[in-house]
């Protein structure tokens, strides 16, 4: 029978699992993506949680989704799905807009009863017609019935049985994409390590789903997805928030300084707090503070006491931390501030993504108050940028603000577990014994302008820091005008010097392109996909993406002035573009901006860039 199956060869494919919050779609999607990664596909995933914590079952607001993009050259979770799993009518209704015109839609036909349709606010008994679905291939499967039959002898109660539906869907999708189901069994085993009966039931149902696929092969086409030869090593699936947390731990290991996090819960940054609070075996100290101000202040205290100190938050929390970040600038203490950006202003769109905090990070403080600002571009890059932020903070005695966003924070991809030996050393600018005589806290290295760090507990280096301006020689409080100017300049020079210690800006794609696409932070995947697609179609487009924003890489101006047309793309109203213009006199850049609290779509970028190139 199997020979008759039509097999489509594809470079990459997007699968979207959707159902009620209680249907376990996140788990099914997660296992599917891990499985795909383990056989050599690149993966990128994105969960789409409902805004409500516990919406009524079966309703539109209760739909939970999980999108997986697998294959070769995968940099985003994909614009639209090739395959949609819709476990109920609400899921179908909210997710059909994320499907390609010729997508395959697998439904649980048992949950398309009249009352299910009503809960999803359908007015007729034909949801497909009502949604105007044409050209898509609908595969209705009696999932609930088959799961119940399969587990009739399992001894599990009805609720537990029905919970296994997601595994039937997973098994079916695994068949569709020719995934080795054994590895899925292994993942399931880990997940249900303490509940062997549940594990058995899930495994059985998953196999049933797989076998069911075999039997209906004639009605749908199966896929073969290209794999990539990958570097040897151990891999795991990681999202941006976890990668951020682990990057800090890596920096702690490399610097030999214990890690301290002071934080207050806020979406979408809270998972950083969760991850670090759980890492006590690695000695991480976490204070869940009474508010964001205390979060950053406990971190500043820990930094003063000699820890690698960080605070994690989102935009509203960054606003609360402003004054304290100014203190860290003034006291010249190392501090990592992580802002996982979300839709703003005010409470805004907490679960959605945006890049609207850039100017807040750069300028949102009183006084001339330069802080280092860096940004992570992908879920796994969060690890490297958190590491880099910590390294800069510790070696240059400055607060560093790391900008990530809801999209990369929750999105995940496969990540090769790194060997820390390959990461650079972190060497804080400590005082040395011979400095004791006449030591002052604001004495600094003449080249880097970095002050020397003495930790409480060190004999002979007692000193007082504070937010009041200090004399550049004696370190005593000073209101001397000339001294103030000097200190302002020194603090700026210290931050500017860091441009010598960061990587240069790289141009990706066509070197002598007609259009340079510029981006920063979490838009990397979409921009890169668009540029790559255009290059493949012979379009002369290049791309420069920024991880380091303040200071900018040294070759920034040279690169930006080299191209006839430069378009700065951001999920805000043009904050980076205006920053660049302010740094480079007369710089002529175009802007492409979107503020819908959603990532870019590759298609819209390609369309826009193509249009730009046609314009004379």
């Amino acid at each position, binding site marked *: 029978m199997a020979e008759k199956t039509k097999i489509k060869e594809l470079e990459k494919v997007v699968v979207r699992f959707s159902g009620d919050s209680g249907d376990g779609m996140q788990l099914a999607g997660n296992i599917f993506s*891990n499985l795909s*990664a*383990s056989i050599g596909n690149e993966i990128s995933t994105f969960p789409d949680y409902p805004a409500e914590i516990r919406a009524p079952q079966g309703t539109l607001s209760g739909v939970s989704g999980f999108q997986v993009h697998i294959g070769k050259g995968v940099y985003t979770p994909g614009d639209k799905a090739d395959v949609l799993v819709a476990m109920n009518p609400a899921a179908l209704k909210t997710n059909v807009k994320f499907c390609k015109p010729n997508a395959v839609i697998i439904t649980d036909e048992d949950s398309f009863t009249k009352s299910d349709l009503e809960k999803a606010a359908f007015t007729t008994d034909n949801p497909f017609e009502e949604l105007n679905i044409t050209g898509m291939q609908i595969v209705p499967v009696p999932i609930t019935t088959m799961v119940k039959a399969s587990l009739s002898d399992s001894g599990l109660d009805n609720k537990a049985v029905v919970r296994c539906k997601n595994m039937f869907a997973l098994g079916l999708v695994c068949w569709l994409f020719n995934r080795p189901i054994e*590895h899925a069994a292994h*993942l399931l085993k*880990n997940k249900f390590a303490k509940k062997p009966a549940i594990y058995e039931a899930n495994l059985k149902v998953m196999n049933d789903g797989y076998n069911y696929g075999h039997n209906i092969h004639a009605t749908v086409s199966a896929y073969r997805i290209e794999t990539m030869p990958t*570097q*040897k*090593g*151990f*891999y*795991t*699936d990681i999202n941006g928030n976890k990668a951020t947390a*682990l990057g800090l731990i*890596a920096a702690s*290991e490399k610097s030999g300084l*214990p890690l*301290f996090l*002071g934080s207050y819960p806020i979406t979408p940054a809270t998972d950083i707090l969760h991850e670090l609070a759980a890492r*006590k*075996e*690695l*000695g*991480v*100290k976490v*204070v869940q*503070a*009474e*508010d964001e*101000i*205390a979060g950053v*202040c*406990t*971190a*500043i*205290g*820990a*930094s*003063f*006491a*000699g820890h690698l100190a960080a605070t994690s938050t989102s935009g509203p929390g960054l606003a609360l931390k402003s004054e*304290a970040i100014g*203190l860290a600038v003034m006291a010249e203490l190392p501090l990592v501030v992580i802002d996982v950006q979300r839709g703003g202003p005010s409470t805004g769109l907490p679960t959605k993504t945006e890049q609207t905090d850039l100017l807040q990070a750069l300028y949102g403080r009183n006084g001339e108050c330069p802080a280092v600002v860096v940004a992570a571009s992908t879920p796994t890059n969060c690890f490297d940028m958190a590491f880099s932020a910590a390294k800069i903070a510790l070696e240059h005695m400055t607060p560093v603000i790391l900008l990530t966003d809801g999209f990369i924070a929750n999105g995940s991809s496969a990540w*090769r*577990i790194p*060997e*820390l030996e390959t990461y650079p050393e972190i060497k804080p600018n400590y005082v040395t014994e011979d400095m004791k005589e006449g030591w002052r806290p604001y004495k600094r290295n003449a080249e880097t302008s970095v002050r020397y760090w003495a930790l*409480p*507990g*060190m*004999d*002979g*280096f*007692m*000193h*007082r*820091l*504070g*937010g009041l301006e200090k004399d550049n020689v004696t370190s005593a*409080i000073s209101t001397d005008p000339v001294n103030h100017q000097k200190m302002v300049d020194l603090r700026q020079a210290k931050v500017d010097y860091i441009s010598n210690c960061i990587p240069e800006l790289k141009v990706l794609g066509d070197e002598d392109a007609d259009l340079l696409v510029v981006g920063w932070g979490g838009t990397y995947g979409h921009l890169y996909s668009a540029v790559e697609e255009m290059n493949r179609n012979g379009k002369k487009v290049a791309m420069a993406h920024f991880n380091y924003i303040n200071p900018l890489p040294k070759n920034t101006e040279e690169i930006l002035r080299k191209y006839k047309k430069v378009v700065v793309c951001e999920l805000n109203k043009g904050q980076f573009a205006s920053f660049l213009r302010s740094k480079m006199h007369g710089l002529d850049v175009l802007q492409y901006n979107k503020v819908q609290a959603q990532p870019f779509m590759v298609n819209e970028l390609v369309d826009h860039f193509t249009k730009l190139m046609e314009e004379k």
Partner: protein
Amino acid sequence: MSNIEYTAKDFKSDQYVRWCPGCGDHAVVNTLQKAMAEVGVAPHETVVISGIGCSSRLPYYMNTYGFHTIHGRASAIATGVKVANPALTVWQVTGDGDCLAIGGNHFIHAVRRNIDLNIMLLNNKIYGLTKGQYSPTSDKGAVTKSSPYGTVEEPFIPAELVFGARGNFFARAIDVDLATTKDIMVAAAKHKGASVVEILQNCVIFNDNIHKYVTDKEVRADRTIVLKQGEKMIFGKNRDKGLVLDGMQLKVVTIGENGVTLDDILTHDATTPDMFMHMRLALMDGHSLPLALGVIRSVEAPTYDQEVAEQIESVKARKKERTLREYLLSGDIWEVK
């Protein structure tokens, strides 16, 4: 603690002291240096953290590690210092505005967590540094620059906040009584956990004599009572007045009158976890009942910094991963060969 004998001078910095002549803060800094010498923790293992205000200038005058931070946040910053390095002795110096207005939230949470800080709250019932606005401890009706017709709000009584936050150590002192203040500071330092010492401090410029009704030499003995652990609650010029409990209320009696003997007088126990008596004592205001000075409450309880450290040790004992890589390899992974 080291074996070296310290003197107050060891804790004095070379900075010129800038408070107004006659300000109560001078006495506090001198007393604190003496107390630190007596406690015997080395200057380099001592940290003084403050917020902003006249009183918060104090760290500059100490030859210890010090951090003059931002308005209201000293408790939070001190918490970070102590959690990071519990071996340090951490003092917080704060004013009534710094601690109870802008910093009220951090203060009650530091007290609730019972983090091992010695919090010196210099209460002059006014904002000194900003030149004379009323504070959260100003008496109702106080006429100040920002309340030219008198305030219309009730003040905080710091002790009530401390007890409301389930604090384990509260003491009260007056700037003019150096000896008692020093003893109280030493007791606060020795107590493990958040120790709050309210020091009634005179601002000669903007709120002169605000505490005079209790601190004045003439009346002090009759309007205050210095509480000492295990001792009878007696006071008065002639040491013949004492406190007894009358129903749920405290009452002043005279020993030798109406058949009252020393045996009838209450004995102070700061160490009992029950807050009833501590609250009653702390609420005495120097009018019908004497204002209580000394250590009113001092109860042993686990400290936050200690428990953070212990939890880490106990998890380490249970889990074997010690590096990031070991941790990652223990999770959901796959190998590419």
